[in-house]
Structures are given as C-alpha cells and as structure tokens.
C-alpha cells in the first residue's frame, strides 16, 4: 500500500434528515477513517457544509471523494489542496492556576480567556489544528480539567 496522507475534505449537502448518517455510514461501511468532522448549515441556503479530516492512501482519498459524490444529497465535494484551515479548542482550568500565564499563551495561539467563574476559567484558542495540538500540549502543566476540540474547518484559497 502507498503512504497514508492527511486530507481535508469539504462536502456540501442538502440539509435534510439523515444526511449526516449517509456520510458517516459511507466512511464506516467502506473502512475509511474520520479524524474529525464538523457540520453546520450554510446561511440562507438549503445546504449544510461538512468538513472532514481523513487519512488514507491517494487511491483511498480518490475513492472517498468519488463515493461522497455518489450520494444523492451531496452537491459538491472539495478535496482541499491550497486552503486555510482552523480549529477551535476550549480548555477549562482551575482559578488556582496561573491565569496570566494561560492568558498569555492563549494570545500566542490566537485566543483568549473566554469565561471566568468562581472556581474555573475557560480558555479559547482558534488556530491551525497542528498549532492547537501544540497549545494543548503546552498547557498540560496548568492541569486542564476538561478539553474540547471543535474539529477543523477549511476554505479553499
């Protein structure tokens, strides 16, 4: 088998019942991999946009794109080549941690403290997935209580 590559694929689908299952069933049924998946309606249309991060050989990626196209409610599939990609992460810390350090780090990763409560604060960053991973690695020393990643979204340049 040829080398496995990471690929970002956007899918425009008719916003109707069970359309998400059609996509995810296709991936599981054919043994394709989903690293992350995001979905939301496109404003003022009847469509939704999914961003799927996947891995596979070139042949598998080509099949994924073609098989997605085959689904009846799929309008368009973008196999991204030259694109901007961002992901968001939220991280909850205890207020006992060094908040100013965390805030400074957030800023370096295009984020900020999004919420502060009596016992916890929530930090938010939005950056390229690789950089988000870096951030999450670095903040380990501040004992994060909970982490959530949004999955990537992408637009072709």
């Amino acid at each position, binding site marked *: 088998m040829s080398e496995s590559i990471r690929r970002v694929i956007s899918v425009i*689908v008719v916003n109707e*019942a069970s359309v998400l*299952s*059609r996509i995810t*069933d296709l991936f599981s049924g054919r043994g394709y991999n989903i690293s992350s998946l995001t979905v939301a309606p496109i404003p003022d249309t009847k469509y939704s946009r999914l961003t799927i991060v996947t891995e596979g050989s070139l*042949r598998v990626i*080509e099949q994924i794109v*073609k098989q997605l196209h085959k689904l*009846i409610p799929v*309008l368009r599939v973008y196999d991204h080549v030259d694109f901007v990609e961002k992901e968001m992460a939220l991280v909850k810390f205890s207020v006992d941690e060094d908040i100013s350090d965390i805030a400074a780090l957030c800023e370096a990763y295009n984020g900020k403290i999004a919420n502060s409560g009596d016992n916890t604060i929530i930090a938010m960053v939005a950056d390229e997935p690789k950089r988000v991973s870096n951030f999450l690695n670095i903040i380990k020393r501040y004992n994060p209580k909970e982490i959530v990643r949004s999955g990537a979204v992408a637009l072709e340049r």
Partner: protein
Amino acid sequence: MQISGARMVIEALIKEGVTKVFGYPGGAIMNVYDEIYKQKDFEHILTRHEQAAVHAAEGYAKASGKVGVAMVTSGPGFTNAVTGLADAYMDSVPIVVISGQVPMSLIGTDAFQEIDAVGISRSCTKHNYLVTSAKDLPRILKEAFYIARSGRPGPVHVDIPKDVTADIAEFDYDFEVELETYKPTTKGNPRQIKKAIEAIAEAKRPLFYLGGGVINSNAAEEVRELVHKTGIPAVETFMARGTLRYDDELLVSMLGMHGSYAANMAMSETDLIIALGARFDDRVTGKLSEFAKYAKVIHVDIDPASISKLVNAHYPIVGDVKNVVSEMLKLSDKIDPDRYESWRETIKNFDELHPLTFYEDSQNIKPQWVIKRVGELLGDDANISTDVGQHQMWTAQFYPFTRPRQLISSGGLGTMGFGFPAAMGVKAAVPEKISINFSGDGSILMNIQELMTAVEKNLPVINIILNNNFLGMVRQWQTLFYDNRISETDLSMQPDFVKLAESFGGIGYRVQTKEEFDKALKDAVKQNKVAIIDVVVERFENVLPMVPAGGSLFNMMLLEKKEK
C-alpha cells in the same frame, strides 16, 4: 386532485407504467393493499416470503430493463426484504421497494413491528426515503423511480408510515424530476474517446472486457458492431454473458475465477484492456498486483467511482456505455482489424491448448452435460436464471447464450435462493420465453415456498436441480483447500423433490439417466406447468478451471487431460 397517501402509491405506480408488483401485505402497509384491491391497472403477485418478492422484482427488472417493484410491510416484512435490496445494489438492478412503517407518532417507541428501516437499508440501496408527509409522496415516488433507473441503476427504498398512507393531500405527478445534486454523466468526453481510439489503433494485443454495464445500458448491439468492426477479441464477465453470441468467433468466453483458460490468458497477455461497464471485481482479477501486468486500461463506466478503484485507468471515460460505444463506432475506421491477426491466433491457440470442456467419465450424469443439453434443446427459446454455486458457474460456462438479458443471476452478492423467485419475475416480464432456473440441492430450498406463488399465478418456471447431495461449491473448496474435511456440506438428507413439487400443485421428475432427462424436460415444456426436475449428477465434480482465491489469473487449476 386530493387523495390519500395509499392511493398516491397506486397512481404513481400506474403513471410509471408498472404492470406487476411483487409483495406481501401486513399491518403497516394495509392502507396501500386496500387500494391495490380496488384497482385493476397492475397485477399484484403475492409471493410467500418478502425476500422472494424483491428477487422476483429483480428478475422482472433484469429481464425487461424496466424498474421492478416490490412491496412489503414494516418490521420483519422489511428485514426479510433486505437481502433482495443488497443483491440489487451489488448488481445495479433498478428496483423500487416500498415498505410500510409504523405511524409517525409511534416511530422511536419500539412499537409493534417497528424497525429503523431506512437506517438498515442506507448501506445497501442507491438511495432511500422515509416519507414524513403525504404531500411529499408524489415527489418522492417520482424521484425514486428516476434514481433507480438513471445513471448506474440500483435499488431505491421508500419507507411510508401508516398515517402518511391514510392522510389526504394534493397529488400531482406531472412534473420533471430535477435534482440539483444528482446529475449522472451519460455522454463520454469526446477528447478522451478520441484518445482511446488512438490507443486501440496503436495496440498490438487489445482486448474487450465486457461487464454488466453493457447489459444495463442496452448496448449489446453497439458492442457487437464495435467488436466486429475492429476485430478485437472480447472476454465477458459473468454479468455480461449473452452480450456476444456464444458462437461468435471473437468471443473468448468468460474470464475470472472460473473463466476459461483462453480468457484468463488473454487478459494476462493483453497490452490494452478496453473495459466497458465492468468493475474489476476480485472474482475477475485474482491477485491485483499480477493482473494484466502489460496492459494499459481504457475504462468506460457510468459510475466514476468504479474507474481507477482497483485498477488504474489510463483512459478513463465516464459515460453510458451505449453512448460512448456509439461514438467509438464513428471513429472505428481508424482501427485496422488485420493488425490483430496474430493476437487472435494466439488466443485461439490458448483455447485449443485448454478448451472449456468436461469429460463423461463416470456412470452418472455430469452436471455440465445437463446445462449443455438444455442449451441444445431450448437454446434461444429459454431465459435462464440460476441460484448460486457450482451449477451457476457451469451455467455461465456451458449454456449457449445468444442474447443479452438471457442470463439472470445473482453475481455480486451471490445470493442463494435468488434463482427461483427471479425466474418467476422473468416469466412475468417475458411470458413468451421458457423460464428455466438452474439450481442446486442447497440453493433451491432457500426459497422453495415460491412453488405456491408460481403455481397460483401460473408462472411455469422449470427448476432444474443439479443434485449432488452437497453444498457443492463449498465442498469443492473443502476438497481443494481444507484437506477434504467435508464440514457441514453433506446434504444427503433430502426431501422427495417430486412429491414436494406435486404437493404444491406442480410437476416433479426424478432423473438418473440422460434419456430420462430429455423426456422430463420435453414433458415439462409441453405441460407448461411449474416443475422441478431433480437430476442426480456426479457428486464430486469440480468447477474448472479455477483460480484459487487471491491467486494470479494465469495460475489456473485446469481439467486433467484425458484420452478420449
């Protein structure tokens, strides 16, 4: 007009020109069956199992080229139909299956006979719908038929809750289906076609590789013309049998696991594969890395996902085979048939070296003889269905097919129990032809209850059981690859097939000699009744040649030569 959802189903079927519906009623679909009772435009054929209803609809569709329709109730009615959906999906058969569902208000409550039908059918249909409002029904039904027959055909499942069939809404069927997200490419790219023709003209050992898509797009006539104009030999897949006449000089028989030596060698030696509506299935290619090593590939298919899926295509052409081949014909003057003379000679030598044949070396009837004999006696007058197993491969190898849609079988899914109900569908679609179902003593029992349907509806299918008291194909693998450990494949415990047929009102014959077989077949044809001819055949006959699973196409187990 304002009518009930149930009535809409009937109206839609009539507008689609449906003449036969195969089905089985039950609670959730009763509103529709009440409307079936009130109409006279199409015939409803009550099968005795939902799986058979779908296979019959498939048989009808494969034989006629029209969309087949099956109707079932919710829950077990639907789950019984799933094998048929999966079968139709694998073989690209245009059918619409309509299932009842529990009322909307009960969906999700684990109601009686409730199952997530669209959730189950999603992965084995081309598309499916859960209808949530009667006002959507006309659009959905029209889309269902359109999607089933257009592009790469396939099964579409429409699940209708009981209250939706009761509700009244406006019915208007007079509109064009416009799906922004579904527009199959039918016309091939002219530049690609031109390049393909140039490649053919330059090739030394080109080979047509014909698949089921040729049949589906009704392109056999054009393909025959192109083959003859170019003088290029052709191999057929199991699904394409009948595209070329059996006695066509340019036909190199079937290729693949049980293909002929010549076909598999031709495929291994060719320098240019011209794939028409074929999908390089594993049963065709054998070991992929060794498959057609010297060949460039022209691949014509309506489904872009079939192209370069398993074998890289150098000349991909997305389009309907009939369209593309018609365009190729216009350019075919650039191809000189004489150029391939020595290639044709090579293939002829392959065939003379190891012809597709069998030896009459035992007291018992050889199963291959039965197939050949039916071919001699009935030939073009019969449509042939099969079940799945050894008898199926022998049918593909030895029946003298003369036309497309003559062989109706379960290729991709390999569904035992397909043959008999499919043969009923074939008979319903093409009553003027004799409907033969070749079966095995394993397969036939998987839908034997259809004797009742066939007798009741006067669908005189002649079932010919090649009875070797084995689940023969599995037994063959056990003999060859499992050191002859015959695990659970001995079917010596059998019903009396003659009495069985008679008890349903059909005719039964038990046959042990060739003379008895001829007599039985002639009698069955003459009586024009549902029949079982139970033929005792040589128990341990193997299907040969054979490419062991995962082996290279050119490494075949061959028939041992014997002095005649």
